[in-house]
């Protein structure tokens, strides 16, 4: 049986791992390779690195650390951050990343998803979606969330974009629920459950993990394939081995 995945997310800014609350006010959490090795040793199933400064600044991800991570890490990892072309994606994949994730650049130019899927196969192509509920109760997509001064609210509805991204060749969707991100009150189960109904590819929950039960709820109630979290892992509030044993006891298929 396929295991549900526990995925620490390392937000990278200027070569360091950082974390902010509600995508703002970033503080340095540690060195990339040190944290990557720590999570691998603790039993993380996969790692995601987001270069959160890349898209707003219009530059691509610095590849030096991708290769350093690839040399020491023996679990899969995904790199996101300002990948705007097949050539940039190829460079990151050749440096040793297993998957690339696109977010703001795919909103700028949706055909990027088709091009990446054609070049590398859908299994390499993750589409990240930053989503926030508006006053009319609809969830809509946000762009350039790495820099609060540049973040834009789009007219595009989250579920419409999720459908289009899959049609274009997304092999996995990471849904960042911005309303719950950094609050540690649990994943946005309502939004994730609705997204699950239209998501035919693996769906990863992001934003809001604060306690082991939140992971259980995301897996059992929203049926997501993986759960991503950052600050609760970086701070040591949740230890991955204990979390995985708890989930196993709760009947969640997990790799121990």
């Amino acid at each position, binding site marked *: 049986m396929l*295991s549900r995945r526990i995925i620490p997310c390392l937000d990278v800014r200027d070569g360091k791992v950082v974390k902010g609350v509600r995508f703002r006010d970033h503080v340095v959490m540690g060195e990339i390779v040190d944290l990557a090795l720590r999570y691998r040793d603790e039993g993380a199933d*996969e790692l995601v690195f987001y270069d959160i400064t890349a898209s707003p600044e219009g530059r691509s991800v610095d590849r030096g650390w991708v290769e350093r991570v690839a040399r020491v890490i*023996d*679990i899969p990892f995904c790199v996101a951050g300002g990948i705007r072309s097949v050539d940039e994606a190829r460079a990151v994949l050749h440096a040793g990343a297993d998957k690339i994730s696109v977010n703001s650049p795919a909103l700028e130019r949706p055909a990027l998803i088709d091009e990446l899927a054609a070049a590398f196969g859908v299994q390499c192509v993750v589409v990240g979606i930053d989503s926030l509920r508006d006053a009319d109760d609809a969830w809509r997509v946000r762009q350039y969330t790495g820099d609060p001064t540049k973040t834009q609210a789009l007219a595009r509805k989250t579920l419409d974009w999720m459908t289009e991204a899959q049609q274009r060749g997304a092999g996995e969707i990471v849904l960042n629920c911005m309303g719950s991100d950094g609050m540690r009150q649990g994943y946005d189960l309502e939004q994730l459950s609705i997204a699950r109904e239209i*998501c035919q590819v693996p769906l990863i929950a992001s934003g809001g993990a604060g306690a082991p039960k939140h992971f259980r709820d995301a897996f059992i109630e929203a049926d997501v*394939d993986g759960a991503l979290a950052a600050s609760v892992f970086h701070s040591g509030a949740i230890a991955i081995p204990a979390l995985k044993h708890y989930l196993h006891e709760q009947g969640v298929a997990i790799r121990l």
Partner: protein
Amino acid sequence: MSVVLVDAGGTNIGSVRYALQRLGVDAALTADAAAIRAADKVILPGVGAAGPGMARLRELGLVELMRTLTQPVLGVCLGMQLLCADSEEGDTACLGLIPAPVRRFVEAPGLRVPHMGWNQLRTQQPHPLLAGLGDDDQAYFVHSYAVPVGDWSLVTSDYGEAFSAVIACDNFHGMQFHPERSAAVGAKLLRNFLKL
């Protein structure tokens, strides 16, 4: 011992090379027929689609060479599928070294394609490649096409139905998952291959 990685253009070549380095083996990346023929072990990595994968081997003039190798050969992911008879992916004729077909996973409720993540390995036949492999061991898979269960299956895994996770025929071996990304379990299986 000399180990070569056949440079057929897959994006996971770097990762496989690093995994071998962690085991103390510096594998050469090559598309040179003489170097491949002379190696003690040959690994065919691969990520992507079957059609372009075979086209690349043809362009490099390696199809007949691969078919005549007598040393232990390991195909990883797409590399494993290229060792098989044929693939439903683009109706591609493959190398035919392991008499198995490659079929697409059929999507069903709750069965997302690609099959992506860690899944349990179930040993079907003893083999030196599997030394030390336990029943609870898991490996990391990323694929939309799979080899059905048959005489060639050394290890199976389940996703909707059972499929082949490790296959072998004579000196040709294949792993559907990514041993280079399967933590200690993957390292164990790669080490076993290097000892064959």
